[in-house]
Every structure is written in C-alpha cells, then in structure tokens.
C-alpha cells in the first residue's frame, strides 16, 4: 500500500513538472491530466474514495476538458509554441519561483513540527454527504448561488462573440 502511495505521488510530481515545462499547450495539458489522475489515486489510498472520484469526475473529466476545448477553439498552431518557449525563460519565472519555494519551505517546517499523520480512517461517501448537508448546508446553498453567477457571467462573456449573421455555423 505504501509503495503504491509513493509510486502515485512520484507520478503526480513528475507529471506536474512536465506539464509546467512543455511549450506545447496540448502536451502540457495531457501531463496535467495524468497528474490529476495520480492525485486521485493518492486520495483513494489515503482513505478518501469520494474525493478521489470527484478528482476524476470534476478535475480530470470536466475542467481539463474545458481547457482542451479552449485550446482547440483558439487553435493557434505552431507559432504559439515559439512564444510559449520564450515565456519559459528564467526571467519570467525566477521571482515567483523563489517566492513559491519560500512557501514550500514554510509548509514543510509546519508539517514536520506538527506531525498530523493520517490515521488511516476511511471516509465513506455517505459521511461526506451527511456532513455536507448537515453542518455545512449553508455552504451548499451559497455554492449554488455561485454556480448561478458563474453560469450567467459565462454566457454574457460569450454572447459578445456570437455570430449574428444568421447563418448556421457548425
């Protein structure tokens, strides 16, 4: 079990590193999808099967699909790769990278100072449902309002680009 955990975690780390350094957006996204699937395996092994399923259904199965859609619609071709390669120059990522490294060190110090081991408790989907609609029911309703706002907002952003010449486009 522990071997599987480290294997999945290593895949997640490597895939994320690859996703960051690819110049081609589609390649980067595929690595990101692999990374998310590996994280789902990690969640499952840590005893959170419902979170693992959501990781696949929502992140890998929905949000990444949206990203691929956008890449396909923009359809920039090879010239975009060159631009992207320039953006990988150190002067763009050095400062944010150092700041993020500081955060990482802080996180490591905190987690080693207070060893919060996973007790190996398996949180069943039913337990998630009970607490989500029990103490956190207000959050659910707020989330629905947020989704409503997102839906209306997305439509109004997209509406400006709707072709109104009357012809049916594919």
């Amino acid at each position, binding site marked *: 079990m522990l071997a599987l955990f480290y294997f999945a975690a290593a895949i997640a780390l490597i895939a994320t590193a690859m996703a960051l350094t690819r110049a081609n957006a*589609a390649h980067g996204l595929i690595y990101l999808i692999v990374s998310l699937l590996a994280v789902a395996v990690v969640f499952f092994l840590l005893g959170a099967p419902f979170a693992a*399923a*959501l990781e696949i*259904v929502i992140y*890998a199965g929905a949000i990444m699909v949206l990203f*691929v859609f956008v890449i396909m619609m923009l359809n920039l071709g090879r010239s975009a790769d060159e631009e992207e390669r320039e953006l990988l120059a150190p002067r763009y990522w050095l400062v944010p990278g150092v700041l993020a490294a500081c955060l990482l060190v802080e996180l490591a110090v905190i987690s080693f100072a207070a060893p919060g081991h996973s007790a190996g408790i398996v949180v069943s*989907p*039913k337990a998630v449902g009970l607490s989500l609609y029990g103490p956190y029911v207000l959050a659910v309703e707020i989330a629905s309002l947020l989704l409503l706002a997102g839906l209306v907002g997305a439509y109004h952003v997209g509406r400006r680009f709707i072709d109104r010449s009357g012809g049916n486009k*594919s």
Partner: protein
Amino acid sequence: MSPLATALFGLAVLAGAVGLAAILTWFERRLLGVWQDRYGPNRLGPLGILQVVADMLKLLTKHDWVPPFADRVVFVFAPTAIVVAMLLGFAVVPFGEHLYLLDLNIGLLFFLGMTSLAVYSVLLGGLASNNKYALLGGLRSAAQMVSYEVFMGLSLMGVVMLTGSFSLRDIVLAQQDLWFCIPQVLGLYVFLVAGIAESHRLPFDLPEAEHELTAGFHTEYGGMKFAMFMLGEYLGLILICCMITTVFFGGWLGPWLPGPVWFALKTSLLICFFVLLRAAIPRPRYDQLMSLGWKYMLPLSLFNLVLTGAIALWLRGA
C-alpha cells in the same frame, strides 16, 4: 475469491470484453441484415463468423500511418485513451454475487469517471490530426459527449438514493424484491438516451456523420489506430449495457439459472436492443440533439430526482 483467482478472473474479463467487442462487429452486421432484409457478412466460416478474423488481419496489415502534419505523440496517444478508459470501467462491474474484480464503495462514480475520460480520445484525436474535418468532428462530438454526461450521472442518482450506496454490488442486492427499472423508469429512460449519446452510436453518431464530416475526428486515422477507436466504441456499448443491467435490471439476480448466466442474458438482450435502435431510428440534426439534451433531458432528470425523493420519504414516513 483469493487474490490470485481474482487476478485470473480479471484477465478473463479483459479477454472476454475485447473478444465480445470483436465478435460484436460481425454480430451487429448480421443482425442489421436480418432487420433490413439483407444478408450481412455470411461467406467466411459458419454464418460468416470468420469475418472477424479477416477484418482483424486486414487492419493489422494496413499502413500504420502517422500524418507528417499531425502532432505525432498525441495522435498515437488519443485512440489508446478510449480503449484503456472503457476497459478499466469493466473492473467495477459485478458479474455475479461473488464474481467481480473490484467492489469499490465508489463503483458507480468510478464508472462515470472513466466514461468522462473517454472524451479526451475524441478531443485529442481531432486536435492532433490537424485536419479541418477532424477538428470540427472532434469539437462536435466532444460537445455532444459532455452535454449528455451531465445528466447521465444525474439519471443514476435516483437508484443511489434508494440504495444509499455507490457500490454496484449493493445496488444489485437492493433489487432483490423489485428491479429498479420499475420505480426508476424515468432514470432508465434518461440513462438509455445518455448512454447512446455517450458511446456516440447511431442514431446519435453525429461526430462521424459521414454525409458532412467524412469521418469526424478519426478522418486521418487508419489501420489499427482506427480499429482502436472502433474497439473503444464497441467496448463502450458493452459497458453501457452491463451498467444498465446492473443498475436497472437486477444484475445477476434471477430464478433457476446461475447468476452470471442471467447477467449475460440480460446484457445480450440489451445489446440487441441497441442494434435495433441503430436499424430503426434516423439521425437527428446536431442542434436538435444538443437542445434535446439541455432542454428536455436535464430538467427531466432533475424532476426525476425530486419526485423520487418526495415519494420515497413519504412512503418511509407513512
């Protein structure tokens, strides 16, 4: 079962699923032949069954061509994604009371996750081909698949409510008295439509609508890589039929015969039904298909949930 026996059973499932998908290519053509009053492949071997072998040999000896204008790595990766995702979906199907590879307490969600991953095959295949038809077909079919995916999940939730578990084994065991196709008839209907659209079979095969997009997202594919798209489609069909059997028709439950036999019988009948749909129903227009999904199927599945909830709570309270 012991782990070793289960592992061997897994290999049997794999061989069975792929073999069944291969035979289905022949069986479907024969069945269509019966319904459309023509022959179908009937020359090779008894009833023409060796046609499968001939097709396979032909596909294996075709030029394994990767277009020079395509994104090579993604082009090869795309058809494998749908095959792997669909085959992994079979891991959670309970074929009998003690005959399953994996009894997850999120089995149903695992199945939904795997079907949602199949979208990538279509999207990436279209994107990597770098061909106008393929791009259009990929985008279209992906839009279709994601639209129908939303209420595919919702249509199954009525069953989950009545069972109180995502485990497919628990769902079957909860149908001892009454199969869920009776109380969840709306859910069954929505799932059936979503299942056809999700595996983009006729009548919802608009992505491959040959009259306008030649072959949609797999225009540039040939040989074995094309065959893998087809294999994925047939595996998807079998998987959807297995799921309908498990969730709505009592899985392995049935009198007299052993469980796995019942499971196989029900699934085969459903596969025949899917082929009949293909033979009988014409293809809708793309915009009609999309509005059918968003305007009718989605509200219907939400209505089904509220109705099921109200009736179930009322019956329990009374």
